[in-house]
Every structure is written in C-alpha cells, then in structure tokens.
C-alpha cells in the first residue's frame, strides 16, 4: 500500500485516532511538565547536540576506542555492515550456544533488521518482554511508536487479545493486564538461555553500554541468561562517561516525561569472576546498515544525533492523526520520515519526506535540536532530482512550464489573460480538494496600473 492509502485508512479508524489523541496529548503534557524541572533546558539541548556533533565528526575514532575498551573489559564486539550480516552474527551466536528460548528487551535496531523473523527462520523463539512490544508481538504487528510500541491500541483491544492468546479472563483493568503479561513472561525468563537487548548509549572512554527502561525486563534480559547480545547502531557512541549526565537529563524527560526512568543499567564488559552475577558472555553487535552514508554531509549527518526519544512523534500533527503504521517503516513520525528513506532507500520511501506540513514542531521539541524540516526539504529535493517519486513526468512538466512562465513577464501576462478568458485553472485537484482557490481578479494589477492607476498614484 502507498503511504497515501494507508494514511487514509488510518484516518477512517475512529478507535485508532481516539487512542492516538489520548496518548500523544498526555505525552506532550508530561514532557512539558518534566522539562520545567531542569533549570537550563536550552543549555542542556545545546550541550547534548555539541557532544553528538563532536562524536559524529570523528565517529571512526570513537567507535574504535569504544571497541577497544569494551573488549578489554571482556565483551566481544562484532561489526555488521548491513541487516543480513547482523542477523547472521546473532543467529550464529545463538546456534553455537544451542540456545532455544531467546528473551528480548526493546530494541528499535532489532526491528530495523527484522531480527525476530531471522531467528524464527533458524527455529528459535524470540520473546519480546517489554509490555508494549509483547502486545504487538502477540498481535502479529510491529511497534507504532519508538517509545510506546502499542500506543495505537485501546485497553479493550488489548484485553481481547490477551483473552484470546493467553487464555486469561478479559479485563479492562490495566494492572490485571500487566500482571497477566508478567506471569507469562516470568516463565520465559526462567528458561531463557540468550538475552538480546538494545543500547541507548555506548561510552567510548570506558566501553560501557547503557540501557534505559522502566519495567525491569531489560535488566532481566541482561542478567539471567548465560549470553547477552546487545545490538547498537554506530551512532550510539558518545565520548566520555561524564557525558551520560546530560543525555540522562534529556532522554527520560523528552521520551516519557519522567525525570528519571526506573532503571539505568551501565554494563561494562562481561562478568569478571566466575561467581559474579550476570551473563558469562557479552556480545556487542555494532550495526551500520546505511548509517555511515549519512555522515557525508552536515544536513544528513544530524539524523544520527537522534536519541530515539519519540518526542517528535508526539508533537507531529501528521503522526497524531495517522499513527505509526501508516508510515510502513519501523521508524515512524518525523524522524521516521527522514530516517527511513536514508536507511532503506529513497525509492522505497519516496512519499515519506512529504508526510509533513513543515510546521517545525518536531524541531522545537527535539532534545538534540535536529532540524527535521531542513532534512525533509533536502530529501524532497533528492526525490525530485533523482526522479524516484511517482508521477514525476507530469509534475516536472508542470514545474518547468511554471518556471518558464514566471521568468517572462510578457508571457505571464498573456497566460493569465488567456486563463481568465477561458476560465481554466491549472489541474491541481489534490490542492483544491480540501481548499478553495481564490478566483482570478477581473483585471490584473498591471492592467489597472496601465489603465490609470499610475496617474492616481502620482503625487
């Protein structure tokens, strides 16, 4: 389905729009309240962005430093050029250890590479353990929001889903639903031999990875199984341990409107002594998958500053109406509209740079000040320049005629006169379907000028 068609379908879904309205509005209110608790919000944004810019300028160096320090602490670091390589590496780690049950905590990168499908193809059973991810996995869907994967579902829909899949009594009580998931997932945690997590930040200076969460499922995933695999995009690295402070001030506030999430796990290598707690092995898979191409120019490079807080989704007037699935990409909303075409190819996502009114709300809320509107315009230019969009021929013809007419005053006047006489309007149905085009004036200004306005205007 095209973006336009799926967006239209989403617009017709009253339940979806109710759920979205509720959630995105609440997210926005909580974010603003939490922001106010940090004395210098703007200063923190600037510092965070400066750290990201510095890192991205020397990303190769910081990645090498991170790798060396993580390995010195006992982790194994694997490099994956693309999605297939990453899936292959993780699949092999699982196979070599004879793993059967794989527990997963939230990782957008794993969604990006379709890791679950790859593991299932090897006969493994990956179980999502974040409540929201668990819900969408049970429903056979993908996440529709970076932070709240099941944001598109009402509690009634989730109750029906749990009744069907888990055999529990249907209940409208959110606590009862969460308890049902906890019970089922505890059994999976008890038998899991491999845990897969994402990474929020990776510290070059110490080789530490940091995982942020509220539920405790990421802690279980990274503590109970014998082997822990952490999957991270190359952009997750930051230079210094002390840099974590500003990001931990910005991320929870922007993401969920919390001053601090319940848990932060800072993991540096594998366990040191045999009787230490935790996994025996830590494997860190560092994923490129199209990211390094964004380093080439300053405009596209800032895409990699994103800390996946989800604030731009909640603020976006387009996302708020249609939700995440309409974007038909694991990354939805404003950041998805700029990330997806760069990761998965402009041809596959040529409509997404247009899924925006360019109002700038995303830029205003972004904790690392990514200029998403500028990126959208850059990508629109690419779509036109590389002629990958649909309806290219007519549109190009229209714009080149428009340019020709606008550049020649005589021709312009002649065309306008003809349009007035023949009462024809340009074929811009998509525009006029929702708006009225103002009728043409009976006489243009230039005609009025020549017919005497000039004399009246003279002193």
């Amino acid at each position, binding site marked *: 389905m095209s973006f336009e068609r799926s967006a239209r379908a989403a617009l017709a879904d009253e339940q979806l729009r109710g759920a979205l309205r509720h959630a995105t509005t609440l997210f926005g209110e909580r974010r603003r309240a939490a922001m106010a608790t940090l004395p210098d919000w703007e200063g923190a944004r600037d510092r965070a962005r400066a750290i990201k810019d510095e890192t991205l300028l020397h990303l190769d160096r910081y990645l090498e430093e991170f790798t060396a320090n993580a390995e010195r602490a006992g982790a194994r670091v694997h490099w994956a050029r693309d999605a297939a390589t990453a899936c292959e590496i993780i699949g092999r780690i699982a196979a070599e250890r004879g793993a059967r049950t794989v527990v997963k905590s939230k990782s957008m990168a794993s969604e990006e590479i379709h890791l679950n499908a790859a593991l299932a193809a090897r006969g493994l059973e990956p179980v999502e353990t974040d409540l929201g991810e668990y819900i969408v996995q049970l429903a056979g869907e993908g996440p529709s929001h970076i932070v709240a994967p*099941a944001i598109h579902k009402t509690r009634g829909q989730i109750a029906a889903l749990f009744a069907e899949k888990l055999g529990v009594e249907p209940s409208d009580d959110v606590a009862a639903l969460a308890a049902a998931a906890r019970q089922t997932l505890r059994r999976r945690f008890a038998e899991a031999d491999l845990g897969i997590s994402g990474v929020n930040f990776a510290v070059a200076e110490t080789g530490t990875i940091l995982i942020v969460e509220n539920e405790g499922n990421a802690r279980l995933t990274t503590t109970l199984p014998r082997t822990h695999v952490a999957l991270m995009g190359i952009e997750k690295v930051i230079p210094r*341990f002390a840099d974590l*402070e500003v990001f931990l001030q910005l991320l929870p506030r922007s993401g969920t409107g919390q001053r601090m999430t*319940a848990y932060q796990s*800072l993991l540096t*290598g594998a366990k040191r002594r045999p009787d230490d707690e935790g996994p025996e092995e830590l494997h860190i898979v560092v994923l490129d998958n199209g990211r390094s191409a964004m380093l080439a120019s300053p405009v596209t490079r800032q895409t990699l500053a994103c800390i996946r807080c989800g604030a731009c989704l909640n603020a976006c007037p387009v996302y708020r109406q249609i939700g995440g699935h309409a974007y038909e990409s694991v990354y939805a909303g404003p950041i998805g509209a700029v990330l997806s075409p760069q990761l998965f190819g402009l041809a596959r996502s040529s409509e997404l740079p247009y899924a925006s009114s360019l109002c700038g709300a995303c830029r205003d809320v972004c904790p690392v000040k990514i200029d998403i509107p500028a990126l959208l315009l850059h990508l629109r230019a690419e779509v036109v320049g590389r002629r990958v969009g649909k309806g290219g021929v007519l549109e190009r013809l229209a714009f080149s005629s428009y340019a020709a007419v606008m550049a020649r005053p005589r021709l312009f006047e002649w065309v306008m006169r003809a349009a007035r006489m023949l009462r024809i309007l340009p074929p811009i149905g998509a525009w006029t379907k929702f708006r009225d085009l103002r009728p043409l004036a009976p006489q243009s200004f230039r005609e009025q000028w020549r017919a005497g306005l000039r004399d009246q205007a003279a002193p």
Partner: protein
Amino acid sequence: MRTQGSQGVRTRFTEELAAAGAQCTVVCGAAEAGRALARTLAGVHARRVVGSDAPLVQRLLHALGDGFVLEPLDRLSRDELFACDAGVTTAQWGIAETGTLVLESAREKSRLLSLVPPTHVVLLSAGCICESLGDALARVSVASHAITLITGPSRTSDIELTPVVGVHGPQTLHVLLLEEA
C-alpha cells in the same frame, strides 16, 4: 562536587524517593535498622527472604528471628529465586535530585535480589548521598561490570499511558536510610 550527606541533600533525597514511589525509613544504628527491616518485611507479608552478601545485610537478616525463611543466595535456582518474597541489599550511593539508588556489582551481589522478588529493601548510609547524577557518575567505578541506577519501583505506561507499578521488577521499594548512631 558539593557536600555529600548534608542535611539539605538528605531531605531532598527522601522527598524525591517519595515522589518516585519508594518508601523510606530513617534509622539510627544497626539495632534500629534491624527492627525497621523486620517491620518492613512483615508489612509486605514477606516470608521467604533472600539477602545479598553484604556483611551488614547478613548481620541484620540473621538477627531477624522467627517468622522468616532465609534463602541462601548462592544455591538458589531461578525458580526458587522467583518464589522469594523479598530481596535485601545495600546501595553504594544515593542521588538526591532524583531519589535514585546506585548499586555496583563489584561491591555486592545485588543484581538479581534488587530485581526479581516483588519487594526490594535497600540499606543506604546517609553519608553516601550525592547531590546530582553527575556527582554520582564521578564516584562510581567501572571496575563494576554492572552499575544499576534504580529510581522507584518497576513500572510501565504501555497500555493507554496508564501507570502500573510492578511489572517485571519489584512493586515495593523500601529504603532504610542509616544515620550514624
């Protein structure tokens, strides 16, 4: 780095703990800590209790008396651990501005006990409260392969953004703040 453990910082810490949904009891000396621990455990109807290897925790647990079953941490299977009612650990640091506890793996075996049982009781020395996250980050050592920051009980808002406490981690987080006797 500013004065750690000063009265202002301590007050802020206990206020923020409450705001994050944790309980806190201020205790003076080991004897009072022991009594508070027994009261706290009884308050959540905990029977099977497991403590970390921190000497203070072991001392207090062994003085608990009847009514509790002490599980040995080293010999617990996953299923036995899942059946425990409460885990008792210390925390190495507190962070006043957010009511956060900092647990370092090199200092104590507290990773699972602070996570798996439905109640987590934490002993923290009042002198170890830092003012800010930055202060705490400057103090911890990555000689610990796992440093865990804990702020309030486990929670989720994944269904209609409605807060629920106690999803995968503890539902109850109780801090016993130790003042010097």
